[in-house]
């Protein structure tokens, strides 16, 4: 449980970081919280030539609440986001999911950007970003680009990030009118990799019909996915519809199998948690509508 020798680089500026990325490319690993990378290094599952420690890039540690979006620097700690009033009111779905991310201690160190870069299929932060239709900002020595979250995650621990790029910022759409949110997950122990995690954003019209719907699933396939629920737009936002949607979605997924759960059980959790989460989101949206 000792890593192989690597070069340790701790840039103080983005310019230096980009120079290092240009130099090392795919031979580099970027470390922020190190909660996943640390274990992978120690187990020698990854053997980078250089480790680029971005913890001194203070410009990546800010949360900004704009008009339509919140932006979080890649280095924002999970605990910071969870306790940020702007996130709690503006991106409630993220605030609801963060208590499920790891443990109290790990959230103090773990970052939003790190979780997105690592792309664990069960991770909550990528799931929320995908559910909300957020954006991942990437910076390479030559250029910056924005990738919609729904195109960013390619598969197990694999993303659209190129070797010479790093994630600098995540963009989260802010809460809109008539919108409701809910999140739930199940694991053997709290803080474990979720066997299945379900997140929902719903927009419900004043007459109680569903205007928009985004149902995200984590831990089910090799990346966070958003179910195709377009057939249910215009349907009443009721418990019954919630059950119907979950039932339909459960039949369309192709779940992973591991020591904790088989495909049937994951499908079942999509059914049960999906119905619960959608119902809760409908209620949340209705409450938001009444306030408005």
């Amino acid at each position: 449980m000792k890593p192989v020798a690597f070069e340790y680089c701790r840039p103080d500026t983005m310019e230096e970081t980009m120079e290092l990325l240009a130099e090392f490319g795919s031979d580099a690993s970027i470390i922020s919280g190190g909660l996943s990378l640390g274990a992978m290094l120690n187990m020698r599952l990854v053997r980078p030539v250089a480790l680029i420690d971005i913890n001194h890039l203070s410009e990546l540690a800010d949360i900004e609440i704009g008009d339509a979006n919140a932006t979080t620097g890649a280095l924002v700690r999970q605990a910071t986001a969870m306790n940020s009033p702007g996130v709690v009111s503006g991106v409630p779905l993220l605030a609801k999911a963060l208590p499920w991310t790891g443990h109290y201690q790990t959230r103090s160190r773990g970052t939003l950007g790190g979780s997105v870069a690592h792309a664990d299929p069960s991770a909550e932060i990528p799931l929320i970003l995908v559910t909300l239709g957020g954006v991942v900002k990437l910076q390479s020595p030559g250029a910056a680009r924005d990738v919609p979250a729904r195109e960013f995650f390619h598969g197990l621990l694999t993303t659209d990030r190129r070797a010479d790029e790093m994630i600098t910022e995540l963009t989260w759409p802010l809460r809109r009118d008539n919108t409701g949110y809910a999140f739930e997950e199940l694991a053997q122990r709290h803080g474990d990799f979720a066997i299945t995690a379900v997140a929902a954003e719903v927009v419900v019209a004043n007459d109680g019909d569903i205007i928009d719907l985004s149902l995200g699933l984590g831990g089910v396939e090799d990346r966070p996915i958003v179910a195709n629920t377009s057939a249910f737009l215009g349907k009443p936002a009721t418990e019954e519809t919630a059950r119907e949607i979950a039932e339909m979605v459960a039949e369309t997924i192709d779940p992973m199998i591991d020591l904790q759960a088989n495909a049937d059980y994951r499908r079942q959790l999509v059914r049960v948690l999906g119905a619960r989460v959608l119902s809760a989101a409908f209620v949340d949206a209705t409450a938001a509508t009444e306030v408005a």
Partner: protein
Amino acid sequence: MSGKETIERWVGARYPRKEDAALLTGNARFIDDMEPVAGIRHAAILRSEHPHARIISIDTSKAEALPGVRGIITGADIAQTIAPIPSAVRVPIKFYPIAIDKVRYVGEPVAVVVAENRYIAEDAVELIEPVYEELPATADPETAMAENASLLHDDVGSNIVHHRTFRYGDPETAFERADKIVRLSWRYPRYASTPMETYGLVANFESQPDRYTIWSNFQGPFILHALMTGALGVPGNRLRLITSPHSGGSFGIKQAMFPYMVLLAASSRILGCPVKWIEDRLEHLTASSSAADRADGVEAAFASDGELLGLKFDNIVNVGAFVRAPEPASVYRMHSASNGCYSVRNIAVENRLVVTNTTPIGLNRGYGGPQFYYALERVMDAGAKELSIDPAEIRRRNFIRAEEFPYKAPAGATYDAGDYEAGLEQALELAEYEDLKLAREQARANGKLFGIGMAAGVEPSGSNMAYVTLAQTPEERAKAGGRSGGLGTATVSVDPSGSVTAKTVSTPAGQGHQTVAAQVVADALGMRPDQIDVITEVDTLTSAWSLASGNYANRFSAVVIGAIADAAEKVAKKIKLIAAENLEVAPEDIELVGGNAQVVGVPEKALPVRRVAAQTHWHPAGLPKAMEPGLFETTIMNPEMLDAPDDQDRVGSAVTFGYVFDLAAIEIDRETGEIEIKKYVSVHDVGNVLNEIVVEGQIYGGFAHGLAGALLEEFVYDAGANPQAGTFADYLCITAPEVPELTIGHFNTPSPHNALGAKGMGDGSSMLAPTAIANAAADALGTFDVELPLTLNKNWAAANGLPYQRAGAAKAKVGDGPREALASKGGLNGEGSVELSASPADVWKLLLDPETLAAVVPGCDKLTQVSEDSFTAEVTIGVAGIKGVYNARIDLRDKVEGESVRLIGKASGALGFGQGEGSVVLERIDDNCTRISYNYNANVGGKVATVGQRMLGTVTKLLISQFFRGFDRRLKSGNANDKSSGSIFRRLFARRAR
């Protein structure tokens, strides 16, 4: 309580633990903090990634050439330096702490690298090149017992390395007389109480004279010292064992580090430098130790009124690859108490120990207790159900009655004191049992799965070392000479300044021995516990120790505390004698109170103890006539009831027998399989309570470990004996949030076997919680057929009548009837089908074309056709940064031209290896469309399987999809009729709906 005030009696008080301040402020020193000698070098161990293989060669040249490497030790070096470590089982197995000719389990040491630091040592480990010839392997005891099983130890001629039967009373007649016979059989899972701190040691060899010194966090028993000197070939005084000031948890596990102590001691000798080795978590989870998994069965004969007439136990213990001492003790620890809490006297026991390609087992909290009570207390619940008697009532009817103590159990145990029925009544009252049953009725009426389960047990404490010799027949024992006893030792001394030190060799790992010892000594000397220093570090050259010394079998409050009390009494007596002479009264008139020796009833006539103590050192000539100077008393005591087994295999196996009664009420969520523990009541008889804080901590800890076995923890092996739970992501160690609140009750009957009336305790509910929870689950689900651990997926499947086999798990499931193992391939399984836009003939041609294969096999760098139906390839497989190069071989079998073929593949590389089998069937849809159906079964081993279990299924699927995607592309590029507008693959593998 501040701890500073003076009270009449410290024993029994809720005195806060003396140990905690150092632990909580980071001032406690553990083994990794110790640098006891200069020039220490660091070891890393190359371990087998194969469950079973012959070692052909080990090339260490590249590793030795690495700068900073001091040397590399292999099995050949060790075999020349030491003798095999002796075993309690007389079979021709040579147990070395490192593989010599074969590896027999994943994680078995193959080479030791010693280097300047651990980093270099681990770099060098990667450069060692062992060559293996793989052998068939199994982790399953019933498979290993089969006629044609692959043998682990050829000289034994069988994988059954121990087989004995026992008979007490007249079990045959009891079963003939029975109105109802209940049979159960099951698998008990393998798990361990993973301590926070892993094994650690520094070993140093010195010459002139030859002497090994080992600093470690070893927990004993020190009978293993004799085994170690046997292996190292030195007299006892040339192996000096020193323990660290603190140990970060053990729960029995740190008993099994003794082979590593021998291995590193020998390495120090060979390389001529002190060597430090700190086990890491990967090593710990694959290769340290665990409790046994078992394939047990039980039969119980009942009369129609619920009287338990007879019991038959059939125990099959998966002992791992070797019978490591003190095994087979785990199956004998409960043996002399085979009747549990009941007055049944007709008992038959059959014990078989089976070696498999798994890590050797050893001590773990409850040692043999959880497995034993799983048999007895599940069959009591089943009997109650079958006879329509309340499970509490059936136990009540069979309990040994309060007036029968001390009770001589049929297999030899003497139960010292107890009132089992009173304990049960207390538990029922605390649980509000009648209301609970109503709540169950109500819940069931609402369609809920609500269950109540209970379990009762005796808790043997302070082991008789001789119980292990039940592994031998009475004739063998007679030949070997008597064995008995369980010595407790302690020293209490007062230095010239009057300060008191108590010394035990109890090697605590967090249990609070220092606190309780200080309370006992304070009472004897009329002082406060904070004035008593308690030293628990052992040094075999300077401590008063014996074979039984150490920290196991709840022996502290059963035995050790008696020795401490006795030594303190001797010191007190001497102080009183001196004070009496000084104060010119009779010694009986002196009492020790508040730091003074004073005349009873005349407190102003007093001498400070400090002054008396000083006199024994400063002015020995002034002492009463014939008195030895100094105040230094050592007690070595052997509990008299611990004799050797008799010729009918009866043995008094322990000093005290506590009692635990657990009751659980649970609800299983039919939709998700979640178990909610509605209520858990645990009533304990620990004799006189020495310190309630310590006792409660132990009760909670034991409960947590029992619950872990019931719900979460399992060392899963696949069908090829590859461990699947090598990290805490897959081995789900219980943590505080998973432990619900306990309702604790005490019902205490003082033990006559102990000066303080205390009984041993600590195993507690670790022995009963698995059974109480299983009984509750069985009650909720309406079946006796439940299997631990009760994981979410398993519960959901059971609640809905669905079959479930844990992915990656190899354990064949055993039914209720005759032992019939259902065949199970285990490992990764999958199937699927794709439609390709070409004719079957074209698909077939392309499928077997080496050039195509080279192009479409994911990550294929090089592919060579060895013969018509054999290929070798070099492939790079990986996700994210986790990449490895693998050498693969693919053989085609059972080719049916244009229709089907079977593929057998094998690959190995730095991150692991795998083998698999798949079949492919082509089906003609039309001239331009062929459906390929495939299925596969693969077993993956090595690091990637041990630490990356979660990812394997997904990676396999990914590789298959990549293969067919590439194949489709290839097919299309060579097929003019390609309907490229809508490739099935593009649809199949396109991102799902956004």
